[in-house]
């Protein structure tokens, strides 16, 4: 069975060559060369990213947007160039990109900003009324679930969930029934970090737009894996995390349509986001600065720009094709191993290079430990998606997630190792 996807036509990249750019992939783990299949948790970082940040810190480091001195000017230019580069990576204009510390922060920013609009701090078309509805899905990462629960609790809005079918696909019929006149916000992930399926986000956006609802997309698991053009997609707001897309920790992006960002009140307050301040009150700058209180993650932002340049140089089409090939091979082999149950094994869907699965009779922690003893790094647990696991009758799963630097050989070693799990623990015997 092969995953249906138009992009499979792109030529495959040479992962073995790319690996040379990632020093950590040369380490040995428990006496075996590392097979890193935990990129959905955090990606590894190429030398170009490490160098970009270090070059900045050793040659031009200074606080940005604040000083008149030469270093401050250079730093400001590099920082704003980084914004333009990262914005361009998702098809956006520089002023449509707000720096955040990561996707979790970006989603909280949106939820709290709407909360502030509601609490009358700044009259805005985004203010919620009690009984207004926020719609999310049953497959979200906690970061795209709990902020909405809290917003609903603070404002009296109602939170509803688009259900997921047994095969891991979102139930669009149910979505069409759920999204209606009372819907004010529709928040969904582009790609689930557990199922690896690319969701029908264009359809969700169309549904939301029919009812004038604001759309918020979690692009954490798509940004490093698929070509993205957020303005063309028509989504209102979207977030991603630097550390999952070859970039540093401590930085992420919030994309927003210009008119949407303009009408959202501030969230964090402090320096560099104001026009005037008296002891009694402050007035705020336009976006993106309005949302960037205090010293921004300057070094990490410059590192993230280098990361997306690296991704662009390899080519997102090529990366996607490569990862689909890896996913296809994994899926095919895992289906044949006795006692392995794949999550979200829907036919005919586009996916990224990750699979989560259950090993009959062996707890995920034990399975992961066994793989680790052979140098294979996977993630075990609920992957911050507890409701999704409960929906599929489990509390934890094993997840293998690939990236551009994983080779066919990595996948073969992984598959061989999975074959050994149940025998080691005497399961099914």
């Amino acid at each position: 069975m092969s995953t249906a996807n138009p992009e499979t036509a792109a030529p495959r990249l040479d992962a073995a060559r790319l690996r040379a750019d990632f020093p950590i992939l040369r380490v040995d783990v428990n006496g075996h060369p590392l097979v890193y299949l935990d990129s959905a948790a955090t990606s590894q970082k190429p030398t170009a990213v490490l160098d970009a940040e270090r070059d900045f810190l050793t040659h031009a480091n200074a606080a940005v947007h604040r000083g008149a001195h030469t270093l401050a000017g250079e730093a400001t230019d590099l920082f704003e160039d980084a914004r333009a580069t990262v914005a361009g990576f998702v098809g956006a204009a520089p002023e449509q990109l707000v720096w955040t510390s990561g996707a979790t922060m970006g989603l909280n920013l949106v939820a709290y900003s709407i909360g502030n609009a509601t609490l009358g701090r700044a009259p805005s078309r985004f203010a919620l009324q009690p009984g207004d509805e926020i719609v999310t899905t049953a497959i979200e990462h906690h970061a795209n679930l709990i902020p909405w629960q809290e917003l609903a609790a603070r404002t009296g809005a109602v939170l509803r969930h688009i259900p997921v079918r047994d095969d891991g696909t979102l139930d669009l019929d149910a979505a069409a029934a759920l999204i209606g006149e009372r819907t004010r916000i529709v928040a969904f992930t582009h790609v689930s970090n557990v199922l690896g399926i690319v969701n029908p986000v264009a359809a969700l956006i169309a549904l939301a737009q029919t009812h004038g609802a604001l759309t918020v997309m979690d692009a954490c698991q798509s940004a490093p894996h698929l070509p993205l053009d957020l303005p063309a997609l028509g989504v209102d707001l979207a977030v991603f995390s630097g550390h999952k897309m070859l970039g540093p920790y401590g930085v992420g992006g919030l994309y927003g349509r210009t008119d949407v960002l303009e009408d959202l009140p501030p969230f964090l307050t402090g320096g560099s986001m104001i026009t005037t301040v008296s002891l009694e009150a402050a007035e705020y700058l336009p976006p993106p600065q309005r949302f960037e209180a205090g010293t921004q993650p300057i070094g990490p932002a410059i590192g993230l720009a280098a990361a997306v340049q690296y991704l662009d140089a390899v080519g997102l089409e090529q990366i996607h094709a490569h990862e689909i090939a890896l996913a296809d091979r994994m899926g095919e082999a895992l289906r044949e191993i006795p006692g392995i149950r794949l999550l979200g094994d829907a036919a005919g869907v586009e996916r990224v290079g990750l699979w989560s699965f259950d090993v009959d009779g062996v707890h995920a922690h034990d399975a992961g430990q066994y793989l680790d003893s052979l140098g294979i790094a996977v993630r075990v647990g609920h992957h911050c998606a507890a409701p999704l696991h409960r929906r599929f009758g489990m509390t934890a799963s094993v997840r293998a997630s690939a990236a551009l630097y994983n080779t066919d050989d990595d996948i073969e070693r992984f598959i061989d190792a999975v074959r050994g799990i149940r025998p080691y623990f005497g399961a099914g015997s």
Partner: protein
Amino acid sequence: MSDLDTLYRELILDHSKHPQHFGLADEEGASATSHQRNPVCGDEITLRARVATDGETIRDVTWEGSGCSISQASASMLSDLMDGVTRDEARTLIEGFREALRSRGQLDLDEDVYGDAAALTGVSKFSARVKCAMLAWVALEDALVRA
């Protein structure tokens, strides 16, 4: 013995497959129950401890729950170990267990003191698994405060 085998000793796999004291006893006398959960993986345990009429001696420890072999074996071994010890002894045992497990491989658990549970010594080299092994012990600590 490979590193993996020092973690998954026979004894641990045995206990996890044949858990002792599994199934909660009726609540009678001075008993208290604690529910603990490992937020990362969702593993959970419910443990009940009964204290004898002297108010000091732990009479029986029963539990149920689901989780990895380390957490299951640890609960099973703990229940074996604690039957008949005093509150004070239990506290000391729990403290020593915690210290050894957090020692990143520096401290061993004495078999004469910890019985089968000494087989959990190897866990301390796997810091991600310390929480699994501790789950039942934290539950007992918590229950004893209220029993």
